[in-house]
């Protein structure tokens, strides 16, 4: 990680560009043959993928049960809405806190693990949450899920927006996405974020420098789970329901896959690229053939074999080669992450 000037900024040009492009989506999405709801999905899953990448990309902790936190957030959103207060901020806070709490619970058991052992433990914990969501009928509705979750009006004190319409909902989640991106960007580029990437590179060395590695890992698990739960809450609202299947092993694997395809290991924006590619591929290939997972799975296998750094990494490599060809013979850049 090199400290370029844009790392320190609160809002980078890339962020502004991404927001602007995303803001125009409802204007042309129908014209290119996609349905408007996919925009909502892309933005929500991007929040989820960015939160997940806090573990995988930033801290090097491969979580294969992240769906649990997303799902817990989704159920929490519905349950707060039904039982505590039908207010969007209260419900979203409920989703965030429930995700954080689930993260704390899991983190206490796994924060001292790393590598494949960590991955195996997250799979086991993901399954625990999934089993509970399927079996605890009185709370989660079992396999039928939690239905009739409302898209609550966005109450801003003076004005209140209605987001039952997909376009309105899209702008709401986009605004939320913008805030989350700024927060996560700050987090990753703060001293705290630097220590996390130090842990990714060498846990032993970081510990010898005097940092409490366990506490850092536990806290990042909680943070990642909290944001994932928050995304889950948004997803429950967008879908108007919460189902156990977002928590299963395959779905938890998909978020790893999206993050990796996009290039989450080398770029902050990788997870977002991955989500966009995955969801659009799902709709486009899925419309042409019902075997889309066959093609996507094959593509993923090839990617892991030949380009494990993902789309963002490949793009960066091409850009670097192009630059070194056009400019003076540059020194091989050691830059691994930047906006």
């Amino acid at each position: 990680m090199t400290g370029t000037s844009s790392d320190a900024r609160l809002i980078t040009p890339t962020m502004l560009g991404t927001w602007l492009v995303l803001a125009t989506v409802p204007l042309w999405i129908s014209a290119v043959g996609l349905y408007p709801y996919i925009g909502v999905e892309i933005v929500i899953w991007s929040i989820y993928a960015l939160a997940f990448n806090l573990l995988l990309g930033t801290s090097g902790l491969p979580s294969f049960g992240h769906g649990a936190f997303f799902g817990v957030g989704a159920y929490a959103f519905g349950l707060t809405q039904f039982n505590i207060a039908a207010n969007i901020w209260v419900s979203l806070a409920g989703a965030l806190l429930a995700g954080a709490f689930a993260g704390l619970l899991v983190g206490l058991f796994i924060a001292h693990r790393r590598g494949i052992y960590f991955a195996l433990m997250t799979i086991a914990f993901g399954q625990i949450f999934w089993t509970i969501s399927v079996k605890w009928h009185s709370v989660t509705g079992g396999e039928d899920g939690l239905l009739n979750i409302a898209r609550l009006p966005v109450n801003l004190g003076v004005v209140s927006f209605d987001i039952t319409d997909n376009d309105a909902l899209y702008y709401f989640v986009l605004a939320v996405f913008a805030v989350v991106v700024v927060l996560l960007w700050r987090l990753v580029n703060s001293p705290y974020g630097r220590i996390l990437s130090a842990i990714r590179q060498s846990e032993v060395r970081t510990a010898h420098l005097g940092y409490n590695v366990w506490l850092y890992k536990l806290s990042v698990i909680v943070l990642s789970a909290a944001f994932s739960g928050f995304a889950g809450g948004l997803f429950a609202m967008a879908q108007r329901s919460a189902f156990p299947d977002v928590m299963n092993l395959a779905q938890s694997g998909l978020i790893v896959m999206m993050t990796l395809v996009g290039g989450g290991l080398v770029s902050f924006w990788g997870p977002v690229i991955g989500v966009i590619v995955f969801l659009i591929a799902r709709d486009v290939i899925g419309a042409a053939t019902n075997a889309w997972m066959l093609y996507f799975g094959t593509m993923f296998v090839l990617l892991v074999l030949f380009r494990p750094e993902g789309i963002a990494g490949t793009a960066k490599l091409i850009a670097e080669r192009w630059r070194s060809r056009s400019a003076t013979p540059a020194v091989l850049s050691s830059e691994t992450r930047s906006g």
Partner: protein
Amino acid sequence: MFDLLPHLLNGLVLGLLLALIALGFMLIVGLMEQINLAHGSLFALGAYLALALTGPKPPLPADLAALWLQVPIGWRYGIALIVAPCLAGIVGIAVEFCMRRTYGKDPLYGLLLTFGVALVLEEILRLTWGTRDHVLPIPQSMSGGFIFADLIWSTYRFYAAGMAAIAIGLVWLLIEKTPYGAMIKAGAHDSEMVRALGVNLSKLRLGVFVLGTMLAAFAGIVVAPIWGIRPHMGVDAVVPAFLIIVLGGIGSFWGAVIASLLVGLAVGVSGAYASEWSLLSMYLLLVAVISFRARGLFGKKSVLEV
């Protein structure tokens, strides 16, 4: 106490079946330090291949198929039990050839690669055989039930448990009593030294991976008549397998077997009191054990942790 007997016995049978399912996974994770997420799909593949061989519509030319259907079901089942794992082994060879590129890298890549393979395999199964449930035909002599202690028991479950026990025994013999086993274990411990001693390590790894694949497929065939055949069966099977490996401790053969029996008993006995929640008992068992023994029951420090 006597009321618990059927649950204990069912639990024991389930434990043996789980051990059989986890066996191939354990070999690959313990000796090659690679997590094979495609294990469940290979397990399902075995069951489907057996279905193709024993079912009413074998994938053969019409007259050959008619001839094949003349063969008694017992023989067909027996042949499927051997041929289907071999066919799955061929798929295993292909997967291992891809996986070679990830050796020596972060184990995460092997895990992701096999996750992709699992997606592809499951989709192929779904495309070829459809999403509906299938039943694997078994010989008359193995089906049905018998009465013991005033209860009806399914005969096949005991045959399945017996086959599982035999497979476990054979694998134990292979890794503990043959020079190949010694080489495999040494290869996991210090691959450079093993290479220096003139052992062809890449062939050895291929062999272990194919063996793991064949065991997965074999488990699929043995378990199929009990749990049914559907594209999703792989995921249902692979999750307990992970759990057992973590519970028993990575790289420990008896750890995995004992963990399987514990999980089987936990599920069986808790099924007596709260059948809805019996699946949860194995997760709670895992959490309880790893809270006190972080590396599982018999785990040693593994290369995978670094």
